[in-house]
Each structure stands twice: as C-alpha cells, then as structure tokens.
C-alpha cells in the first residue's frame, strides 16, 4: 500500500473521507444514502488512516505538506512522522470499529439528531487526525480547539438534561483554560525560535534559559494534562464521558484524551531535548497519583460509564509512569532505557485506546438495550446479550492487565522499565521506581477487582430490573464493531513481538536509538528486557501453552465418568423461599471492604433509616444511603469558583449607575495622564 501511494497521500485521502462524511451527514436528513455516507465515509477514512500510519511507521519516514493562507504567519502545515503516525493508527483502528458500530447504534435516531451527531462525529475525527499531524502552532491550536468544540457539541448532544449541559460546559471551560496555557507556552517557544513551525522547535527547549524552560514545561504539562485528564485537573472527565452518546464516549476515552499524551510526548521528547530531573519526577508522581486515585474512585462507582471514565484516568496515569521514567532515564543519560520506557508508555497508549473503546462500546450496547447506566439495575445480561458480554469480558481482562492479552504486555514493559530505573538513577530518585512499581501493582490488582465487580454485577447472576431482564442482544453491526476491537486486543496481546518493532521509528526519532532488536529474542517468540539474563515473557507462548494444557483438566472434569449425573439445581439460599435478585451482592456491597480500608480518602457518608412496626429488630423497610465525597471538587474547585464569583460580584459595584461616578472615572484618568503624561 505504501508503495502505491505515499503515506501523506493516504492521509489526505483519510481527511477527505472525513470531510465527505461531514458533508454527507448534512444530507442525512434526506433519506438513507445520506445516512450510509455519513458513516461509510469515516469508515473508509479510518481504513486509509490505518494504511497511512502503518506505512509511515514501517518506513519511519517523515512527510511534510502544507498550504499557506494569504495572511502572514498563518500557515497550515501537515507533518506525518512516526510519532504522529502511531497516534493516527490508534485513532484509525478505533474510528474503524466505532463507525461500524454506529450503523446499528445510531439507526433509530430521528433524522435531525442523526445528522447532528454524525456531522460532529466526522468533524471530531477530522480534527483529531489533524491534531496528530498539524505541525505549526497556529494550525495545531485551531484543530485543537475545533476538536474541543466538536467534542463539546457531542457531549451536549442530549442537552435537555441539566447534567449533560453542566458536563459539556465544564469540559469546554477546562479544555479552553488548558489551551490558554498551551498558547502562552507555544508563543514563548515561538518567540525564542522566531518561527511558528514545529520543525523549528526541535530541541529548542534546550536553548532556553533554565528557569524559563522549566516554566514552559510546567505550562505544557498542565495544559496537555487537562485534556489527558490527569489528576488534579481531571474533574471534567468523569462528568463528560458518561453523558456523551456511547460511541462518542468510546472515541473520547479511547483517543481524545490521548491527544494530551501526544502533546506531552511531542513537547518533552521533541521540543525539549533533555529535561531537568524534577520534570521527570513530577510526571512520575502525577502518573502514580492519577493511576491510584483513578482506580480507587472507579471502584466506588456504580454508574458503568463513569466507572470506565475513571479507569481512563487510571490508564493515563500508567502511561505517564512510563513517560516519567523515560524522561528520568534521559536526564540520567540512558537513552536505551528511555526508549524502553517510551515504548512501554506508547504501547499502553495504543492498548488503552483499543480496550477502553471496546469497553465503552459494550457499555453502550447495554445502555442501548437495558436503558440504564446504573449497574445496580443490570445483571444477568450474559444470557440475553452473550456476545456483548463476551466482548466486555475480553475488554475487562485486557484492561486488568491479565495475560495473555495486550494490557499485560504494556504493563510488563512498564515494570521492566521501573525495575531498570533503580540501577540507572541516583540517590533519592532511585527509590521512587520500586515504590512506583509496588503502587502500579496495587493499581492493577484494584483494577482487576473493579472489573470483577463491573462484569460480575452487570452481566452475571440474576437481572436486577425489568429492562435488564428484557434486554436483547445488540444489533449485528454493533457486534461487528466490538468484534473488531476484540480481535485487536488479541492481536496486540499475542502478537507483541510483531508490534514492538513498530516503535523503532519513534524511539529513533525521539531518542536516537532503536530497541526492538534488544527487546525481542532471536526466535522472535518472547520479549526480553535488560540483556541476556533479563526477564522474558511471551504472551503467544503462554496462550499456546494454555491451549495445550487444556486437555488435562478437561479429562479430569469430564473424561472420568461420563455417566456422572450433572444436574441443575437452585442456588443455596439459606433455606429462604427462592433466590431473588434482592439476595444478590450489589456493586456497593462489593466495594464495601475497600471503602472501609480507604475511608480516609473517600470520607464516606452513610445513612440508614429503618422503619418498623413492632420492634427495631423486625424492620419493615430499610433505606440505606451511602456516598463518598468527591474530594477535589469539594476541596479545591468549588472554593475557587466561589471565590472568583465573589470577587466578580464585588467589582460590579464599579457600574453602580451613578453618572457622577462615571464622570469621575474619566476625570481621574484625565488628571493622572496630565500629571504623568505631559511632563514625562
């Protein structure tokens, strides 16, 4: 494919396809063809995007193209280099699956709403692709904001709900605040280099004075961190992702937050050569915090989509752990280790895009059929929606980092990087690596617990509501969409040794080293880290071994005596008549032990109210209420907002309506200027 067309041409094709999709969706109100086009075009675009990014990654080539607006400084420059290509790849695979999924998901929308949704969906895809490929401050900021804007329109899609409107506004405001920081940072760089072109920024950070450089790094970290949803600037994420239509949530959680990661990588590894130690440390700390707090908050959720949203924060944290270590290795002069860490981070970026997309699509199917996001009203879905359940299970296994799926590979790489960190860095920093590793392990285990809860409560046992009982399996295209991602999860899990070489071009570009040869054993079956006597792992071999060993338990369980009676009986219900959904363990109950253990963080509030007739020991009805305190919102953001509004309200006294006062302002201004202006 790359031979026939250059990757940039393919990229143009993809962009054009998205554009056509947007155009077509405006016609979607007029009958079926519009609908077909408005989702078919992005599908083609996604396929082209895959081709483009793959060819660029394999050739490790850099393509630059651009157009100039008539206005000086305002140019539209595109650059497809390996780093951009990787993110485009993630985007394109996801977009491919989501477009297929959307055929079924959006089928029963009324024409007008369909048109709006499809239009902004295409615009979002277009802007995302451009965000990853724009290579000029002006152009980048434009597509960056277009992305935010279209995402805002998509989040506010069901804007008759107050919750949705709030979430949309919150997202837009925080995102714009982040952009403001970016603007300042970029312009500072531009002033230093005298150009707005990213190409000119390459390693420009090194030439800045120490203090200014650090300030810029901080600006960029926060600015991009808002989009990535790092703690403590994450609060928009769990608000916005759940309320968006599920295919959009998948896109947002899968790839939109990755634009933040892209920005951080671009700035820290491309614009800045070697960053000071404190930066890497900060990134590492932020990563650990986000990972741990993210999963802890996820555990307390019983809104399925919010739970997934919090897991996005967790995974962003894991990615940042990789990036932080890479930065530290750079600072301590170990490019090879830095490459390892970078590969780990980027691999996890790719993985998270896939399995989080998968999970959101699964949640979407559930929401679509069972009409609820509240896990306490689901249950038993595995019977009526078997495929959705299977897909969700795969996603859950993958995101919990369990072998042999893709989540395990990237977490393993991250562990290897952290392990190497102890030896490679100096005094105090070195302790952070193992501790980070331990906390990462805790995070992973908690994630597993969380997804046992999510899958177990939502899909297993008895249905907890009528909708859940009557839910139907998702339509064919929705299943197909999920199927694509299931396949991708397997591919990236089992085919790890074929994926890792893809990152060579990136590490070459960012750090000047290629590590895949060092990471893959000669026979091409296992990944190894840290030379000959290193830890090795081979997901493919594991999978093979599991299959090979399968007959043993099978023989034990079934082969022994076929005649052994296998009956189906009621579950043990302590002798009470009949087991009902009311007997089941709820999501809240499931997470209770952890709520107790981490009560210092959650500060849970519970309220039990029992009404009884005879004696309190025989209650007729019990109302139990338990909620945890959203610490950041309560402790930081609410006071901040209140403060700003208070000040603003005070300042309105300026405009109190007295014409005398108004004249006095002018008078004072005049006198001051006369006194200081004329004599000056």
């Amino acid at each position, binding site marked *: 494919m790359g031979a026939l067309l250059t990757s940039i041409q393919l990229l143009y094709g993809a962009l054009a396809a998205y554009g056509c999709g947007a155009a077509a969706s405006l016609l979607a109100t007029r009958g079926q063809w519009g609908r077909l086009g408005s989702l078919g075009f992005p599908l083609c675009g996604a396929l082209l995007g895959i081709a483009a990014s793959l060819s660029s990654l394999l050739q490790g080539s850099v393509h630059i193209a651009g157009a100039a607006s008539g206005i000086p400084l305002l140019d539209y420059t595109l650059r497809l280099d390996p780093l951009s290509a990787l993110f485009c790849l993630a985007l394109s695979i996801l977009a491919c699956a989501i477009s297929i999924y959307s055929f079924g998901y959006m089928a029963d929308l009324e024409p007008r709403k369909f048109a709006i949704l499809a239009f902004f969906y295409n615009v979002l895809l277009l802007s995302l692709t451009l965000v990853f490929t724009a290579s000029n401050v002006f152009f980048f900021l434009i597509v960056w904001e277009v992305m935010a804007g279209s995402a805002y329109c998509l989040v506010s899609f069901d804007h008759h709900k107050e919750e949705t409107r709030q979430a949309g506004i919150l997202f837009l405001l925080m995102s714009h605040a982040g952009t403001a920081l970016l603007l300042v940072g970029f312009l500072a760089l531009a002033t230093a280099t005298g150009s707005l072109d990213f190409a000119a920024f390459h390693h420009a950070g090194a030439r800045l004075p120490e203090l200014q450089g650090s300030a810029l790094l901080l600006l960029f970290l926060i600015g991009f961190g808002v989009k990535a949803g790092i703690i403590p600037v994450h609060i928009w994420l769990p608000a916005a992702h759940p309320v968006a239509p599920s295919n959009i949530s998948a896109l947002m959680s899968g790839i939109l937050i990755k634009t933040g990661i892209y920005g951080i990588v671009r700035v820290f590894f491309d614009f800045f050569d070697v960053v000071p130690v404190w930066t890497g440390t900060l990134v590492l700390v932020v990563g650990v915090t986000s990972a741990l707090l993210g999963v802890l908050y996820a555990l307390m959720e019983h809104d399925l989509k919010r739970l997934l949203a919090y897991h996005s924060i967790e995974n962003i944290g894991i990615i940042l752990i990789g990036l932080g270590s890479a930065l530290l290795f750079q600072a301590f002069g170990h490019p090879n280790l830095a490459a390892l860490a970078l590969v780990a981070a980027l691999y996890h970026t790719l993985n998270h895009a896939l399995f989080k997309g998968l999970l959101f699509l699964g949640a979407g199917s559930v929401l679509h059929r069972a009409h609820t996001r509240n896990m306490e009203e689901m249950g038993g879905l595995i019977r009526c929606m078997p495929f959705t359940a299977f897909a969700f299970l795969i996603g859950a296994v993958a995101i919990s980092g369990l072998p042999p799926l893709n989540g395990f590979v990237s977490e393993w790489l991250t562990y290897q990087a952290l392990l190497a960190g102890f030896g490679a860095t100096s005094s105090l920093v070195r302790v952070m690596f193992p501790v980070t590793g331990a906390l990462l392990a805790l995070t992973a285990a908690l994630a597993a617990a969380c997804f046992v809860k999510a899958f177990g409560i939502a899909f297993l046992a008895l249905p907890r509501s009528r909708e859940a009982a009557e839910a139907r399996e998702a339509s064919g295209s929705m299943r197909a969409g999920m199927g694509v991602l299931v396949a991708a999860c397997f591919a990236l899990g089992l085919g790890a040794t074929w994926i890792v070489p893809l990152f060579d071009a990136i590490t070459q570009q960012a750090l000047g080293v290629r590590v895949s040869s060092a990471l893959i054993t000669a026979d091409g079956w296992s990944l190894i880290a840290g030379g000959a006597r290193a830890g090795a792992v081979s997901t493919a071999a594991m999978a093979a071994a599991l299959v090979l060993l399968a007959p043993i338990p099978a023989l034990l369980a079934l082969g022994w005596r076929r005649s052994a009676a296998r009956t189906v009986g009621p579950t043990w219900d302590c002798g009470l008549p009949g087991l009902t959904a009311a007997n089941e363990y709820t999501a809240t109950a499931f997470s209770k032990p952890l709520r107790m253990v981490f009560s210092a963080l959650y500060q849970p509030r519970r309220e039990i109210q029992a009404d009884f007739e005879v004696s309190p020991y025989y209650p007729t009805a019990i109302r139990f209420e338990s909620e945890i305190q959203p610490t950041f919102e309560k402790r930081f953001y609410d006071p901040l907002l209140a403060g700003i509004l208070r000040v603003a309200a005070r300042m309105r006294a300026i*405009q109190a*309506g007295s*014409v*005398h006062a108004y*004249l006095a302002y002018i*008078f004072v201004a*005049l006198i001051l200027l*006369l*006194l200081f202006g004329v*004599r000056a």
Partner: protein
Amino acid sequence: MTLPDPQFGEKLITLMAALVLVLQIAMAGHRWLVTNIRIFALQSFLLAAIAATIAWFNHAPHLYLPALLTLALKGVIVPRLLERVVERVGIRQEIEPLINQPLSALLAGGLTLLGYVVAESFQRPEGSPSPESLGRNTLAVAISLFLIGFFMMINRRKAVTQVLGLLSLENGLFLAAISLTYGFPLIVDLGVFFDVLIAVMVLGILVHRIREAFDSMDVSKLDRLRG
C-alpha cells in the same frame, strides 16, 4: 489707521482670560442655578470679547465670525434656553452638591494649578507677539477652565448644571482655540458651533423628558441600570 500694538493686546487678553477663570471658579462655588447661568452668559461675553480683541490686534479677521457666533449662541440663546427650562422646572437653588463649597473651591484652585503645570511643559516661545506667546499664557487658563467645568459636572446633581458644566468646559476649549491657533479653519469652526447648538438642544430635550419621567432633575436618581 494706526497699527495696533500687539503687546497691549496681549496684556488685555491675558487680563480678560484671568477674569474668565475667576468667573469659572465662582460658578463652581455658587449654588444658585440662575446665577450660574448668568455667570456663564457673562463668561461667554468675555470670550467673545477676547476673540474680537485677538482679531483686531493680530489681524485675524476670520475670528470675528466666531466671536459673533459665541456672543449670539452662548451669550444669549443658550442661557435663555436654560433659564426657561429652570423656570419651567421651578427649582431655583441647587440642592447640596456632592462636595461642599469650601472644598470644591479648594479643588478648583488645585485644578487651576494643574492647568499651569501642564502649560509650563510647553517650551518658551521665541519672538514676542505670536500665537505661541499668547498661547502660553492662555493655554493654562483654558485647561483650568476645562478641568473646573468637568469638575462641576461631577459635583452637581441637577441635570441643568451638568449641561452648564459641559458648556463652560467648552468655553475653555473656545478660549484655547482662539488664543492658541486663532481658531480652527473656518468651516471647522462653523461645524463645531453647529454641533454645540445641536448638543444643547438635544440635552435640553433630554432634561425636559427626564423631568417628566422622574418628576425631578436630580440626575443622581438615574441609577436603575447597574452591573
């Protein structure tokens, strides 16, 4: 006819300018509406006189027209209009200004000082009788007039007195115009006068309407539009 002596003319003008300034301060201090209006009329007469003097002594015949216009407009017509409004309203005395007399007189003094400070910054002119020399002496007065008029507008509550302040402030402008540059090019002068006339009419109508709407002329009552 004999050539008039510019030096004498300059002295004369400076004297009259000083008088104008005194009148302005008096107006700032005085509380009776009608008296204020009369003072304003007197001031305008003096300005017309100054204009005529300059025209005569400095061979600037095109200044006669502005002089006449001022005489007619600010000396006669406008005061008439205002007095009629005041009579219709039926209030003769300004209620307590925002800043009491002694203080406002003091401030007026201060503003005069500021006027001189500003005028000081202009370098000493070379060559005796010329717009420059005349300018240096009268510019200070003009600026002071301007500032004091401005101050009046802030200090007084009545709509009419605000108009009056605006007008006296424009008197300062006029003084500067005729003494600094012997006035604008003629058409501009005409335009300015035309505008002033319209402005006075517009403000007059507004005052009238306000009195009807709020049955008072106290502009400090106009504070419904906030924030």
